[in-house]
């Protein structure tokens, strides 16, 4: 195991409001790192720092450093960084294009034009996201016509098409029914071992099911981090224990 993402003394602010304090942690290559915690614990803000999506917010500021492999993320060209560190949002946001054009959107923006290359990419990404069999006959239909769960797996396929190293999941199943949730979780399990995955979730059970390591965030601080089974079975902090057993949250 080698360190893929290293976070040192990271503090995040929106205006004067500090949403995350002095975070240091390391995420290993090809693990599923899960982050749990109640609302306003800073976990989504942390996630969106990893591909600098926070910077769209005019008031956002950060101190400390985040390195991806050996590079500081602030020194990487932001368009390249976002292709290398893909994100799947809480709600599936297909662009109002066909399934095919949704998946090729990122690669097209990075200059890929060849039809055969794109066709291969679409099939590979959809197979990886376990959506190929359901949509292979209607690749040129609008993506908006898919069901919610299918749309979310389409969004995963769309991220995969950019050939990322890291995939961020920002509460990817909070808007889905249980069956669609199970499908998305299966997809994550399949991707495990090939990509470094960081999953932020409100669903404690989900973190326990898919995670290799888990961090517990509370009010902008990381209370605890460790192997998922340790965090859930013998947490070292009483607040973690109370949260994972459902006493608050």
């Amino acid at each position, binding site marked *: 195991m080698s360190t893929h993402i290293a976070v040192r003394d990271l503090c995040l602010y929106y205006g004067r409001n500090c949403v995350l304090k002095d975070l240091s942690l390391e995420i290993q290559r090809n693990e599923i790192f899960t982050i749990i915690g109640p609302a306003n614990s800073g976990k989504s803000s942390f996630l969106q720092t990893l591909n600098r999506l926070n910077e769209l917010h005019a008031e956002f500021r950060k101190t400390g450093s985040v390195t991806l492999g050996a590079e500081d993320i602030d020194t990487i060209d932001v368009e390249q960084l976002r292709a290398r560190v893909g994100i799947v949002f809480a709600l599936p946001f297909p662009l109002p294009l066909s399934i095919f054009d949704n998946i090729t959107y990122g690669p097209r*923006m990075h200059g890929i034009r060849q039809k055969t290359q794109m066709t291969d990419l679409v099939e590979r990404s959809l197979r990886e996201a376990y959506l190929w069999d359901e949509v292979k006959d209607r690749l040129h239909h609008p993506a908006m016509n898919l069901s919610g769960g299918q749309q979310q797996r389409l969004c995963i396929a769309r991220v995969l098409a950019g050939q990322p190293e890291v995939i961020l999941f920002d509460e990817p199943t909070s808007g889905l029914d249980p069956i669609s949730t199970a499908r998305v979780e299966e997809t994550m399990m399949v991707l495990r071992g090939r990509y470094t995955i960081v999953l932020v979730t409100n669903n404690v059970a989900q973190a326990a099911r898919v995670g290799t390591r888990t961090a517990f965030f509370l009010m902008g601080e990381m209370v605890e981090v460790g192997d998922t089974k340790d965090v859930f079975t013998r947490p070292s902090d009483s607040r973690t224990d109370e949260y994972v057993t459902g006493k608050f949250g």
Partner: protein
Amino acid sequence: MNVRTQQRIAVGFLFFCTVLVVLPVLVILGIITYKGFSALSFEFIFGMPKSGMNAGGIFPALLGTIYLVTGAILFAVPLGVLSAIYLVEYSRDNAISRLIKLAIVNLAGVPSVVYGLFGLGVFVVFLGFGVSILSGSLTLGIMILPVIITASREALESVPQSFRIVSLSLGASRWQTIRHAVLPHALPGILTGTILGLGRAAGETAPILFTVAAFYLPRLPESVFDQTMALPYHLYVISTQVPGIREDFRFGTALVLLLLVLILNFAAIILRYRFRKKKRW
């Protein structure tokens, strides 16, 4: 009075007011068509004016208006759309951008005759374009600029924020995001603004009065530095400045102006419809 009666009275009154709005439109259309239709002929539309505008046709004025509207649109749409893109997509909310927005709103409130004087001062005299199609088009263009900017801004702002975030998160640059994820969905709204501007540019008299319009010029313009007749000014001239013009010629001219604006609008609406059909969500 019980609730039901109140309800009936309210609905009846609202309906009455709505009909009142439609009424003037119908009456205007009706009278102009009734009195002007008999003047319409091939010669009237495609002929040169003769014998002190009391015979012949209005072709120079019709073509002049088409040139002026085209010129105004060519100038105002790119400029308006691009500045709207800057305001919505790039500018931060600060004192300068608020000042710009305020200026645009105020530009929309300036009386059209003031645009005419402005055009005379800047394009005709200062820049030396003379009384010409170029000066007239630019003056009309500036007049419709706020309409186009405002409509384009609204169109851009109505594109869901999620499209931008998704596009950026997939590694697209800001400009690629605008070009591929925002602009295609704002086009119908931008076209609506263009339609509104177009109708205004075709119908205004004051801005072209000092900058381009010729009283009587029975030939076609040869370059953008030529003067030209224009329909709204021609209508004004034959209705008020020259006594004894046949009534059907006056109403016929008004009818042609109306039809021109309707045809231009209709073309733009069809274009907008085709763009809308392409957007599938």
